[in-house]
């Protein structure tokens, strides 16, 4: 009689702009002793059988599918090659697909959702994107391919870290994180990374992403910017010009040092302070560091507000808008301070069209009918802009987790293991363009049972 269907073969998709280090990583994977037999599909015809690995060349061929879905394109060459490869299923444990630097990862990912044979016998384990930490800035704003490669990724390697300063890396990580809050971000030089960080990621498993970085589903912060300053005891002045708003919310908190890690413990207190009572502040008032939110009145701008610091130390200033929008400066007498560390909590307004993530977490049980209706509508109307969506759901009446992922309009979900000791909850993330955070949150909460 026939045997049960064998477990699906995991597939890793490797993307990255030209020069980001894909070939270096691929050679590493092919030569390193990781105990796995990996079949590699390269974006050009390579040599056959490097160290007994299977290496196959592919010429990118995009097929538009006739299924009424306007954004549904797949890679015909991959369907053909993977189909042939699966006939020798016993010769490998894992498949790796390298894409060209200019490739849109969409059609590659969609191939695993659209073709019945691929759906049955393969599973998209992870999209791994390499980012050239030094040169990516030349492309990140104007090359759609770079944005899409970052947005589609499950794992992002900020590579060539040896060529940039830690500060530049931090800045890059903030930017990358703002585009894709769901990915695991690693820093590498020469694409040097443990195979366990790349293979068997279970692209599906949002909980694994949560385990890596519990902060990844960042709430929408009520502030856009924070900077740490070293201040002497006494009075200092925040000077502001007129900006897009007639007022700006402001919180100052003492922190331990001027380093990046010193900001973390102050973030939640700052969120709480921002949610506090209104406190209209004029130039006559005095600002004191602590859990009060000051609403700086800017009707008469330019304006100067005084901060009184009781003891010398490090202070983090949180601002509702980016200080550049108000040409804000911090002065002690005539001397202007520069922040020791600063962090942007939301992409600048000029990036509104850019790729962002919306994360939603909620413990409540979902009404499956309402959720289906809502998510279908979201995917149908915004599927072109939503690159990826993944999540774990707590469905009312089910004692098992429901896990799902989507690429553009294509949705794939299934019941997973039982919740067990874990508290049932929902955690989902949307990555894409023009995402309306508020509407997505509202829509989701309307599906709670």
């Amino acid at each position: 009689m026939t045997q049960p269907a064998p477990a699906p073969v995991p597939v890793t998709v490797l993307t990255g702009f030209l020069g980001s280090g894909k070939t270096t990583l691929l050679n590493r994977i092919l030569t390193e002793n990781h105990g796995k037999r990996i079949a590699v599909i390269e974006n050009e015809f390579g040599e056959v059988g490097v160290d007994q690995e299977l290496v196959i060349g592919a010429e990118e061929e995009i097929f538009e599918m006739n299924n009424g879905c306007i954004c549904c394109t797949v890679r015909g060459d991959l369907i053909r090659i993977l189909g042939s490869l699966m006939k020798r299923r016993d010769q490998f444990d894992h498949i790796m697909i390298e894409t060209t630097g200019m490739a849109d990862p969409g059609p590659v990912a969609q191939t695993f959702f659209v073709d019945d044979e691929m759906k049955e016998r393969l599973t998209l384990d992870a999209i791994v994107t390499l980012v050239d930490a030094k040169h990516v800035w030349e492309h990140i704003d104007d090359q759609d391919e770079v944005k899409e490669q970052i947005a589609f990724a499950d794992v992002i390697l900020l590579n060539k870290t040896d060529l940039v300063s830690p500060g530049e890396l931090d800045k890059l990580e903030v930017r990358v994180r703002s585009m894709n809050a769901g990915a695991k971000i690693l820093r590498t030089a020469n694409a040097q990374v443990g195979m366990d960080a790349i293979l068997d990621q279970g692209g599906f498993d949002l909980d694994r992403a949560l385990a890596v970085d519990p902060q990844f589903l960042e709430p929408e912060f009520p502030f856009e910017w924070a900077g740490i300053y070293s201040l002497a005891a006494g009075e200092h002045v925040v000077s502001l010009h007129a900006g897009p708003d007639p007022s700006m919310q402001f919180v100052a908190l003492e922190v331990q040092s001027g380093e990046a890690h010193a900001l973390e413990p102050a973030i939640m207190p700052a969120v709480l302070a921002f949610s506090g009572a209104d406190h209209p502040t004029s130039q006559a008032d005095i600002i004191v560091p602590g859990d009060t939110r000051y609403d700086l009145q800017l009707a008469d701008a330019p304006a100067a507000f005084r901060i009184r610091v009781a003891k010398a130390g490090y202070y983090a200033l949180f601002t509702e808008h980016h200080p550049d929008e108000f040409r804000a400066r911090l002065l002690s007498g005539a001397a202007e301070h520069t922040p020791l560390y600063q962090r942007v909590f939301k992409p600048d307004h000029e990036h509104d069209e850019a790729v962002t993530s919306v994360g939603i977490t909620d413990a409540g049980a979902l009404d499956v009918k309402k959720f289906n209706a809502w998510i279908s509508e979201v995917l149908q109307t915004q599927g072109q802009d939503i690159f990826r969506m993944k999540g774990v759901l707590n469905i009312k009446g089910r004692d098992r987790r429901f896990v799902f992922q989507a690429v553009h309009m294509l949705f794939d979900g299934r019941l997973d293991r039982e919740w067990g000791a874990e508290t049932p909850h929902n955690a989902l993330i949307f990555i894409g363009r023009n995402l309306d955070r508020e509407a997505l949150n509202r829509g989701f909460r309307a599906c709670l049972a």
Partner: protein
Amino acid sequence: MIALRWTHDGRSALAGLVGGGLVMLSRDGDERWRRDGHGFGLSSLACHPSSTQAVTGGQDGRVRVWNLEDGAVVADLDAGAPWVEAVRWNTAGTMLAAAAGRGVRVWSRDGVLVREWPKHRATVSDLQWQPGRDLLCSTSYGGVTLLDPARDEPLRQFSWQGSSLVAQWSPSGKYIATGEQDSSVHFWIVDTGKDLQMTGYPVKIRELSWDHTSRYLATGGGNEAVVWDCGGKGPSGRTPILLPGHEQRVTAVAYQHGGSLLASGGADGRVVLWQPSAKKVLVGATQLSQAVSQLSWSPDDRELLAGCANGDVAVISRP
């Protein structure tokens, strides 16, 4: 197993294996010889219609003609691209065609290149000679192309926005049926260039077989074999005959060369014989060890050769 064919005289069978190997089997299942056919993988195989030769194509970009008596390579031809998808003899056995990458090449019987069409609109997925005539059709993303080995330019293009995976000419030459990636079957009427699209399949279609009268086309594309009646006004508007005999995907369909029996093989390891044109359609069924990947009727239509994915071969006699 990639391919399994009877030799022209029905006395032996030739099997192409996933690893690239080529095995000659005697009528009673003994291995006569085994060759390392195509190092990286064999993709297609065809026995010459009237002699003890066969042709194979592989993922090493080579097309090889074999002497089946001793397993020697008679000709080793460059297909023009690293991945050969299909190799076919014409009905008379005077010409050999191969599809590789976006190109198609035709050679004479003795290996002289007759014609090449190097640039199809996409990778060629299948290639078929018209039965009894020296005309080829190729399929790719974008439709079907007709090729005449006497001309450099393609004869005609049947365009449509979809990915055609496999093709079969009806023996009459009237229709070219294609199995499509988007889970449909297309009928191209060769004379007019008009087409009919048959949808409703759950999965893509890679299994097609015409009966010898050109009236019935059998297809896979799900857990049932499907038979379209193309008699009279054609299949348009007609409900196909559904043959539910498998618990899993139908993986092969084969009509007899001259009879009306249809064989279907499935991923469930079953081989079922049907007579779709009669009222009592189910003729018999056999369970094999593994998913069936190949079905081929003997030249005299008495025996059916079945190959399983794991390499097992069975010969099933007509009841």
